[in-house]
């Protein structure tokens, strides 16, 4: 079994536990859309476009006097994953992610300003190297800011999870003579921004949890959950919280604090990208002296 965290406390790809991958944001990549953004998180590559607020296409949305309807469509490219699946336009996972994003921004966007109209978010997943949920949310947030749509705050998402600190399999011989695998591990380490490999590892360790010797702390064997948290970083409000597995309540708070750290570091980089882009525009339009 591969070690998930090295002896020196570094992860497989050389990051520290609370370190996120390299963030790269670009605004206004599609001039024909009202707002667009490109978001890279390590190898994960997502493009988001926003159309609207425009006249809604469905009647239910068009008569909605209270606010705008946000729709989200997610498409992942065939080549985005390691397993090349057949092209299926309505993949279940994509639809679920679309619903998640639409719900997230329904409470972040000030929809009461745009009655009877719809805001359409389109997300294209070009490369999936884990954590696409949060990458898609971050990309959508940047695209909405680029479109000039009123939002309460940034919405920044990040994932967090637990992996075993150091695992070693020891071949031991029982009294009966049969060889059994014993996995030694010294506790769990919370990490942020899981890549695909770590995600798989985290899943894998959940299967092996039955093998883990009983001598360790009880409850720990359940701690291999991954959560994706979307948060408004300025006010600290949690907008979306998605869990991919069962997690004891005592560990939840720990994981959230880890995710918060990741969110803060992503937020600063997103804000810097928005600032850079805005200053470029302002300079071009002559609001500030060159």
């Amino acid at each position: 079994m591969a070690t998930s965290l090295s002896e020196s406390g570094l992860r497989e790809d050389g990051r520290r536990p609370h370190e996120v991958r390299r963030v790269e944001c670009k605004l206004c990549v599609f001039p024909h859309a009202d707002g667009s953004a490109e978001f890279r998180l390590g190898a994960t590559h997502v493009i988001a476009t926003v159309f609207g607020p425009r006249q809604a296409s469905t009647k239910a949305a068009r008569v909605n006097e209270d606010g705008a309807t946000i729709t989200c469509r997610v498409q992942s490219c065939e080549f985005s994953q390691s397993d090349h699946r057949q092209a299926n336009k309505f993949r279940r996972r994509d639809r679920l992610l679309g619903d998640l994003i639409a719900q997230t921004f329904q409470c972040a966007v000030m929809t009461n300003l745009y009655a009877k109209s719809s805001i359409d978010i389109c997300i294209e997943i070009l490369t999936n190297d884990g954590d696409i949920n949060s990458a898609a949310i971050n990309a959508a947030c940047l695209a909405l800011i680029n479109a000039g749509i009123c939002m309460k705050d940034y919405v920044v998402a990040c994932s967090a999870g637990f992996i075993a600190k150091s695992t070693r399999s020891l071949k031991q011989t029982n009294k009966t003579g049969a060889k059994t695998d014993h996995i030694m591990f010294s506790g769990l380490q919370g990490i942020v921004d899981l890549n695909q490999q770590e995600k798989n590892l985290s899943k894998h360790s959940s299967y092996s949890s039955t093998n883990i010797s009983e001598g360790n702390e009880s409850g720990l064997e359940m701690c291999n959950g991954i959560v994706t948290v979307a948060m408004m970083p300025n006010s600290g409000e949690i907008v979306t919280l998605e869990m991919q597995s069962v997690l004891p309540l005592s560990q939840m708070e720990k994981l959230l604090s880890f995710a918060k750290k990741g969110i803060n570091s992503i937020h600063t980089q997103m804000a810097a990208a928005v600032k850079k882009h805005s200053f470029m525009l302002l300079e071009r339009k002559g609001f500030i002296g060159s």
Partner: protein
Amino acid sequence: MQQKFVFPGDILVTADKDKDCKEGHGTYMDTIIQKNKVSTVVKSSVCGVTEATDKKMTVNVKHWKNRGYVIPKEGDTVLLKVTSIDMTSCKGEIIALCQSGKDLVLNATSIDKNHKMYGMIKKLNVRELDTDSVEIWKCFRPNDIVKAQIISLFHNYYHLTTAKEYLGVVMANSVFGHKMQPISWNSMQCPITKTIESRKVAKI
């Protein structure tokens, strides 16, 4: 207050007991807890540059796209540019909008190049009386500018009416391309060729 560059969620003004603050464009009110004290603040909701404030502490944040977001409602007056007519109705694009009790909003944002809004005047709604004998081609022609009022929103078209004295054609070109002048409630004259064409003219 000097100009400042702000992001969504940034705090612009904190309201005190003696100071009153109001939200302007691109901002919203929120309550935050700071040092165990609940205070009302004005936060920015778009990213842009803050604008000059008045005594009431109104803050506007100007986004470079600067879109006004006007959504037509029932009873609003609009200007319709007629694009097509047929036996029963006249269709066109809404080019301007005047919300009841407000100034005329030209180039309202939802009326931008990408997202046009369309209006339709049905035969029954052209004038108040004698609706059966209305002939659309005698009331509107393509390229006329018509002042109309919104009745309702139907499918992709806003239903409009001109069944009022002050509603109808406000600007029209004659077949020779000259701007015509109204001479009665149902006719307009070309000032150069002196030809008379029939229109449903608005009383201004």
